[in-house]
């Protein structure tokens, strides 16, 4: 209940855990308000950045090393989903043909992935465009004409 009471003297691991939690919170943006259907997870693949302009919502998915044709981008009931699969790097390296190999680091994501984003009310899901360049998938969701900011001309009364 009270972490400080349960801690034994010299339990400096607990301090590290607290520090880790705080860093995670800051780095993963868990302290930011997020949509209930798209809560950011630490280390989720692909990482997502979302930006908005007057005309559109732009989503950037950092998904390197994937065949663009195999990426599945879909919109259903206001939910945008990005799904696909990434193969492990082991197979295509020259040493896979035979012989011994040592693995020193295996940090890169491999396997199936799926991430979803709840689109805002003013999004126009029928005109979503997706492009893949340098390992980044860019999805542009235009906003409805009616929701765009516009200038209203004031006419002089006669």
């Amino acid at each position, binding site marked *: 209940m009270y972490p400080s009471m349960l801690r034994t003297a010299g339990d400096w691991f607990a301090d590290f855990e607290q520090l880790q939690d705080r860093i995670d919170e800051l780095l993963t*943006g868990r302290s930011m308000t997020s949509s209930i259907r798209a809560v950011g997870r630490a280390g989720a693949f692909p990482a997502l950045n979302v930006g908005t302009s007057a*005309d559109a919502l732009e989503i950037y998915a950092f998904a*390197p090393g994937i065949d663009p044709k195999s990426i599945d981008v879909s919109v259903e009931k206001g939910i945008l989903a990005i799904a696909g699969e990434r193969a492990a790097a082991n197979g295509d390296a020259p040493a896979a043909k035979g012989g011994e190999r040592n693995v020193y680091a295996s940090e890169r994501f491999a396997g199936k992935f799926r991430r979803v984003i709840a689109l805002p009310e003013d999004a126009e899901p029928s005109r979503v465009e997706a492009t893949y360049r340098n390992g980044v998938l860019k999805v542009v969701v235009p906003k409805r004409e009616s929701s765009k900011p516009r200038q209203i001309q004031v006419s002089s009364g006669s």
Partner: protein
Amino acid sequence: MQPQANTVAPSQQPQQVQRGGQRTGPSLLPAVDIFEDAGGITLVADLPGVAREDLAIGVDGRSLTIEAPVQLGESSALTSVYAEVRANHFRRSFELSSDLDTAKIDAGLRDGVLTLRIPKAEQAKPRRIDVRVE
């Protein structure tokens, strides 16, 4: 913790980098896979949003540094509403051991994935010594 003497050990680089007064602020640590076979070491790094012409791979003595800016080509009118990637450049350094031939490093970048092949120096390759029968 050192697995073997001839590994490419991820070195502890400070996150805050300043190089030639150009870039300050936090950098992203790219995720890597590192394999070793008899011929050398293969390093695979995720560098999404990096164009080939922007990628800088430097060898200084026994230190290998990968550095590249992230270019998304977003319009300036864009306001960020949610961000998991919060820095605009990648940087990571590795310490190379002396049995690797730094002059023959081969690099390829495709779809944001960098593949580096660092061959072993000839004298460091394992070889079989035949025992003569007298």
